[in-house]
Every structure is written in C-alpha cells, then in structure tokens.
C-alpha cells in the first residue's frame, strides 16, 4: 500500500462548514496527489504537490486548497463545503516503477458527504 493512510475515512458535514482531509505517507515520496471520484466522471485531479510547499492545481481545483508543510503530510481543505463536493477523495503518491517509468499508488479513500 506504499504506506499511505487517509483520515478520516468517512465524514458527514453540513454545507458551509470547513473540512480538512489528511493524507499521510511514510516512504518519503516527493509527489503527492488529491483526486475526487464521482459516478460518471471517473477520477479527477484536484491538486498535487511536487515537494514541501510546492503545489499545483489540477482539473477540478475550484473550492479546494492544499498545503504541504512536511514531506509526509498533504492536506486538502474545503473552505466552505458544498453539496457538489460530496464525493470519494483519494490521495496518491508517485514512485518509480521497475520498468523505468512511474506508478501512482492510491490510498484507501475518504467518503465525504455534505448535507
């Protein structure tokens, strides 16, 4: 599992409240990612990080912010949650593969419901 954990695993929150999801890795990977997964849309990249304090936007970054103050933790924050942000959120890391390219390994996911 490449040492990836996500917390919380499930959360129900109300519209307008702030929410922070945490991704933690234990293997010192440089690249970390946040995706959301919705029926009919597959996996879509929200934000990613290529080092401490180095982040960039993905395809669906509006309404989300991230922070990476240390290598092992990548935080995803919904400043004011909306019902459209109800989704399953996956964190991933990138590591070199045997074949000379890279692989992304995914965490177990966080199911977020905004009521």
């Amino acid at each position, binding site marked *: 599992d490449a040492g990836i954990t996500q917390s919380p695993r499930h959360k129900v929150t109300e519209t307008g409240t702030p929410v922070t999801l945490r991704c933690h890795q234990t293997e010192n990977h440089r690249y970390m990612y946040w995706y959301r997964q919705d029926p009919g849309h597959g*996996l879509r*990249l929200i934000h*990613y990080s290529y080092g401490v304090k180095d982040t960039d936007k993905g395809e669906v970054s509006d309404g989300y912010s991230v922070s990476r103050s240390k290598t092992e933790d990548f935080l995803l924050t919904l400043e004011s949650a909306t019902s459209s942000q109800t989704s*399953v959120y996956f964190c991933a890391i*990138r590591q070199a*593969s045997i*074949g000379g*390219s890279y692989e992304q390994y*995914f965490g177990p996911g966080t199911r977020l*419901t905004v009521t």
Partner: protein
Amino acid sequence: GESVGLHLPTLSVQEGDNSIINCAYSNSASDYFIWYKQESGKGPQFIIDIRSNMDKRQGQRVTVLLNKTVKHLSLQIAATQPGDSAVYFCAETHSGYSTLTFGKGTMLLVSP
C-alpha cells in the same frame, strides 16, 4: 452511497474466457498509457503501463495494446477469473508522469 460502478459501460464474461477492455484517448502527445484496476471500496491499483513508442506490452495474464493511429488502447486479460471483477480505468500522462488523466472506466463482471 452511490457506487462508482453505476453509469459505466459493462463487460460481462464467463470465468476462463479472455476479456478485452477498450479505451480511446485524445492527447497524441501522451508519453505513457496506464491501466488501473479498482475493486469495490478500494483505491485504484496499477496493473500495467506502456510507453508511447511501443505497440504491445505483456504482463502476468495481461497484455496492453496501443494503436496510435486511431488513438486506441486495450487491455486483454487471459483466462479471466472471478477475482478480476472490478472497474478498469485507462490513464495517460504527457508531463513526464507528473500528472495522470483518467478515462471514465469500464466495469468487468466475471461469472463462475
């Protein structure tokens, strides 16, 4: 909650059959193409990738074929087993593997 498998194209096969899952991609500049498997309630799992300068790559029971002329990628699974039942996603990268763009997925159902 609603399953990721809803609204997906579905391929139903019998155990022991060979399965072929197809994917069309749009970016001719992509460097690598990757297949992921996602079982219910779990994160996606890497299966195999293929570099854009290759046509075919084989793994254990899986083969990926790339046709750049028609921008088509396929995953062939030999002797499909019930444990292969999952949603399969293709993905592509064109930024030195910094980011991936995923397709919408195909559900594979294997009956005994």
